[in-house]
């Protein structure tokens, strides 16, 4: 049809634009991964296939300690955030319409606020008001704040499709509220809960700005280590570390998305 092609944007222009964008998005990532396997010290020269830099990572005690901190922080904060966040989402869904909107907005604010603002706010609060020693504890307290909001947002979305009459039916058939929840409601929302937990875990693992402000001696995380390594200068070891972290976060995020799409 003549008319339909005339209505559209020139296809070659759209294709060229899309190709440029995807190259722009993925070229840096591809080169990073490629050079992590290069035997050369210089990122512009290919030095033959090598896993030397990965080997060096395994022997780096400082990085291994940071990995331990990262995992401990992500596990603890996502655990608490999942429980508190899921409960909050269930509570929000029971609110009357008008207060529900306001409460949803409140639970969305910490995600919206620029991370640097939340970071200085928490630092000032810990130091000036609570007089806490900065370290893993303050980092966990801080991470639960945004993690719990991610969980609440995801479980709230999941709950939107829930038919309240199913619960009433269960109650009519003699189930206690507790039993009705675990046997009827929870099986329907668990993909959202697990998806939220995974997202929280990934977010916590990747988070840098807030951790950077409320960290203390000996509680450095992987992103904080990368930051100080990058500040000191570029080394091929960072390529290997970055590649591993990239693989980890993409895997976690994909799992989370798959769970959320589950019917």
């Amino acid at each position, binding site marked *: 049809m003549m008319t339909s092609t005339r209505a559209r944007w020139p296809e070659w222009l759209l294709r060229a634009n899309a190709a440029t964008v995807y190259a722009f998005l993925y070229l840096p990532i591809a080169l990073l991964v490629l050079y992590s396997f290069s035997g050369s010290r210089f990122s512009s020269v290919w030095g033959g296939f090598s896993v030397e830099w990965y080997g060096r990572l395994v022997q780096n005690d400082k990085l291994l300690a940071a990995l331990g901190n990262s995992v401990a922080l992500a596990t603890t904060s996502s655990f608490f955030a999942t429980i508190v966040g899921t409960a909050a989402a269930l509570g929000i869904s029971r609110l009357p319409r008008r207060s529900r909107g306001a409460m949803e907005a409140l639970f969305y604010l910490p995600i919206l606020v620029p991370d640097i603002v939340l970071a*200085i706010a928490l630092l*000032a609060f810990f130091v000036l008001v609570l007089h806490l020693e900065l370290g893993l504890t303050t980092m966990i307290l801080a991470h639960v*704040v945004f993690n719990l909001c991610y969980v609440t947002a995801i479980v709230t979305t999941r709950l939107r499709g829930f038919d309240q009459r199913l619960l009433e039916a269960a109650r009519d058939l003699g189930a206690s509220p507790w039993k009705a929840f675990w046997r009827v409601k929870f099986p329907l929302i668990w993909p959202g809960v697990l998806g939220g937990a995974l997202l929280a875990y990934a977010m916590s693992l990747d988070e840098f700005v807030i951790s950077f402000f409320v960290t203390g001696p000996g509680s450095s995380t992987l992103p904080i280590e990368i930051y100080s390594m990058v500040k000191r200068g570029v080394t091929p070891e960072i390529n290997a570390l970055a590649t591993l972290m990239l693989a980890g976060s993409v895997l976690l995020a994909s799992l989370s998305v798959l769970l959320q799409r589950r019917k």
Partner: protein
Amino acid sequence: MRPTQAPVPGATRSENTATALLLGPGFIWLLVLFAAPIAIVVAVSLARRGMPVEWAFDFSAYARARDPIMARIVWRSFLLGVMSTGVCAVVGYPLTYFIVRRTARVRYLLYFLVLIPLTANSLVLIYAWITLLRPTGLIEHFIRGLGLAGEGTVSILYTPWAVGIGLTYWYLPFMVYPLYASMERFDFRLLEAAADLGANRFQSFWRVLLPQTVPGLATGCLLVFVQTFCSFVVPDLLGGSKTLMLGSFIQQRFLNLPQDWPLGGALAMLMIVVLGMGVWAVGVLQRREG
């Protein structure tokens, strides 16, 4: 018989108790570790500069924030924010159009590919750009290969250009996300109808497609602008000390010497005001959309 409709008052009270118990922990957590800290920033911005602060009412941080050096930093953040937002919009709009017009499976894959970099660690991606942009990096080799470089090194790293590239890279998905949502709802038969009625490409874009997708585009622009204006990691690592932006300046006043928490707090207030205006504008747009 069990009452199924109107519950007895006692049941309502226990229902309310259950709601409060469910909501309570999360609400209190946010009250103590989100609302209170933000209030503390307000207080800090109004306190006297000390080690790190002296609790005495003092408006001088806001006076220091009006210093010409500060004005230059705020202006630079604003300009880089506007420019990255512009590039994201000009590139993201046709990209989203391209994605939406594919078949369902390809569309989902292409959309997913735009969002994937967001799931990666920002430091990792910025680091990837550092290796490309630094002297002796691949971009320099490329420019030399084209014969565009003169004597000396081509250093893009630690210039506003590097910050602009980094910001565009990191925030482009935030532009595509709302655009995709609004373009997916668009009925593309309208474009054919417009063509049948004699509209040319430009007219059917300007008079039919664009007006319908303005809310998505505006939401994307606000999202990208607010975040670039408030960004810290990208300008800190790619811009260095010569391209200081607001986020890095706040970080330095809090963690580096000379410390000035009240000034940092006052500038954080500016960020909150910008964010508030952005959220308000998006709300107005979405209400108008229905």
